[in-house]
């Protein structure tokens, strides 16, 4: 009886404070992506949201088969949608700075995540990508859905070997 009351009140509290309820788990495996922002709704480590492969693959995702300037022939990319990563991290802002392992970075407007089905590809042709193979994360625009994206503007935003996303106003 008592236990039930406590559980109910906990559930109610969870409804009232969603931030608590959906607090991000801590990564169990190797961290492959860190999302940072001036303020995050769901940070898990030191005011940043850090993800391992397992966490990323649990998010809403899409798979697309397409040609890119960096691959040969049609390649199937799959991975979580950029916007679901931002939502999970509780990041708010207008600009994203995508930073690669080699410190290359590109500025991407948040609209690209919200309006386009942009993914952070974790797998190419079903296989995870090593750093030698542009892994572990590759920002892929939906070139298969919209041919008008196939130009240098989006190529330069298509960062690979991604390690960090910085969200800013």
């Amino acid at each position, binding site marked *: 009886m008592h236990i039930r009351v406590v559980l109910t009140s906990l559930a109610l509290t969870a409804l009232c404070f969603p931030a608590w309820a959906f607090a991000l788990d801590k990564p169990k495996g190797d961290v492959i992506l860190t999302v940072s922002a001036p303020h995050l709704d769901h940070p898990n480590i030191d005011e940043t949201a850090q993800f391992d492969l397992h966490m990323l693959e649990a998010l809403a995702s899409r798979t697309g088969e397409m040609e890119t300037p960096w691959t040969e022939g049609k390649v199937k990319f799959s991975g979580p949608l950029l916007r679901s990563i931002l939502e999970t991290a509780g990041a708010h802002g207008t600009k994203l700075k995508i930073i690669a392992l*080699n410190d290359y970075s590109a500025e991407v407007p948040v609209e690209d995540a919200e309006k386009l089905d942009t993914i952070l590809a974790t797998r190419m042709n079903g296989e995870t990508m090593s*750093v*030698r193979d*542009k892994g572990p994360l590759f920002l892929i625009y939906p070139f298969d859905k919209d041919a008008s994206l*196939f130009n240098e503007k989006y*190529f330069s935003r298509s960062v*690979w*070997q991604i390690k960090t996303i910085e969200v800013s106003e």
Partner: protein
Amino acid sequence: MTVSARSSGDIIRKASKATLILQSFAVLLLMGLVFLLTDISHRYAALQDGVRENALWSVYQLDREARRLHETLHVMLAERDGSSATVKALGTRYDILYSRMNILERTSFEREFKLDSAVERQIADIRSIVFGKVGAFDALASHGSFEPATWAPIDDELEKLVSATESLLVYTNNNVSTDRAEARQAVLALQLKSAWLVVLLVCCVVVLIFILRRQLKSVRLAGLSLEAISNELNDAYLDAEAGNRAKSQFMATMGHEVRTPLNAILGTAELLELSPLPPSVAAGMHTIRRSGQALLEVINEILDFAKIEHGKLDIEVRVVDLQSVLATTIEMVRDRATEQGNQIVLHFPETFRIPVVATDPTRLRQVLLNLLSNAIKFTSKGTITLSVTEAETSQNSILRFEISDTGIGIDQAGLCRLFQPFSQVDASISRKYGGTGLGLTICKQIIEAMMGRIGVESRKGKGSTFWFEIPVVAAVLPAPSAALGDHCLPGTLPILKILLVEDNLVNQQVAAGFLKHLGQKVTVVGDGFESVEAAAHEAFDLILMDMQMPRMDGIEATRLIREAENDRESTPIIAMTANASEDDRRLCEEAGMTGFQSKPISLQQLRAIIETQGLLMSEASTGEVQAIDTENSFAVRKTEIEAALGEEAFQELLSSFFDDATKLLEGMHEALAANDYRSADRLLHTMKGAASSVGLQRIADTSQQLRSGTISENSITRLADTIGEFRQRLAA
């Protein structure tokens, strides 16, 4: 006109040549545009090819990552730092370098640059160093133990790698610069080409505008000259039309001018023939009258033809009793046929299926008369047969008339010339038989105007058959005209007060002489003006009005007389004119005239007018002159002959008639006994002619009746009784 026509033709031809040039220019223009478009699309494709990872950037990244790896390893060796974090960082550095090397392999570096052997060797070195260290780094990643002794030589190799990537970077940069310069050159060339194309385009447009302007100008000029030509043609047409009208007017005037004196000649001759003349003079008189009539026919034919040529052939449809038209037509030519020793045979059904039709009786009679006169003219001592048959087609009823003769016939060549204006079978025909050669043309035109067909079959020496067919529509005779027909027995003439309006003195004398001869009270005036005055002062039963007169013409006079009459009973006014056109007829009717008579008027025609008028009057005033019978006709004829030849002569004529009649009756009995109906018919015809010439109309009528039925002994006896009756009465 021809000059301007030719010049406008030239203009049009030039314009079309210009159009051709214009078209080729347009094609050239199009080709230029297509060329430009293809070029642009080629360039675009080239640009698409360029949408690749930038080679220079790739080489730069490779160089940079090689340096960073070398630096990391160098620092590790110098500081002897083998911690796992630095080992991991070293692994990552190598992985990035490895991926960079991969990228460089994939960026179609070879495709973009024409590599010389030295560079190829350099790239091969770089590849072998980078990929050659995979084993060492994989081992490092799995064991995590950093052995400085193992890594020192790798550090040296990496130093070589850095210098190799650096020189590759320099080489690539040079190459890219050259490429860029070349690309600029290509763009410049393209721009130049585009400029040329634009110049060509502008040229084309300019030429286009120029040619269009020229063409517009020439079209306008051509239009103007065509308009001028059309105006000239119109003027020429109007001139021609005016000339034609003048000719027609001239024809009409000449017709009138010829017919007026001819009228006088014919009238006088007829009048003179009525008075006792010595036989030689009488024969001359007869010739004058015959020739005059022939001349009149010729003139009428020519005037008719002129009318037809101007498309003024009017068909006036009236209700027509076929039988009476045929009978009167035959009567009109019978005398002439007899003169030539010809016999006329009529073949038509006892009763027509459609006895009364709507057609133009005057035109029908004209055609029949023409064909019959031709048949008589070209036949001597033969037979002329007029047969009429009715045929029925799906749409209408057709009457077919056939006039066959046993005359000279026409050969094949001659048949072709028939129905052509002014042509006769051959020159000898016109010399021998005379005639205008217009008769058949007129017939053809009339029949065609009646929607019919006309044709001929003939063999030289065997005779000819002219035939024509006209579609007819059944009609009903109006009751009063039927009654008039019943009463219309020649003989009695009422005595009328007649006003004769005529300006020509001779015509006055002739017409007045005829009227007086017919026992009429005549008042003669010289023009329309006087006629109006006379009509105002005195009531007339009939006015005979000439059309063309000085001071006031017939039309105007009639109009004034009708105005003066107001609501009094109107006096019948009959127009007399030599200009017997349809227009005149219409004018007369509009002015209020009762009837219309073309000049010259013969004694017979005058008699008919007076008879008709008397009948109309008698019907109006309850039959005062109802007693029209054979006795009266006899009395009139007697007066006529006595006036002309004297009383004694008439008595002689009468007695010789009765003598002849006895002989004729005997002949008939004999013929009947021998079943020779033809002779009997001929004898009856002679009897009829003789009887009517002395005014014994009843005998004439009875003879004619017998002819139309079957002749029997009984009927001959009845005729004999009638003759006997008259003989007794006249002897008394």
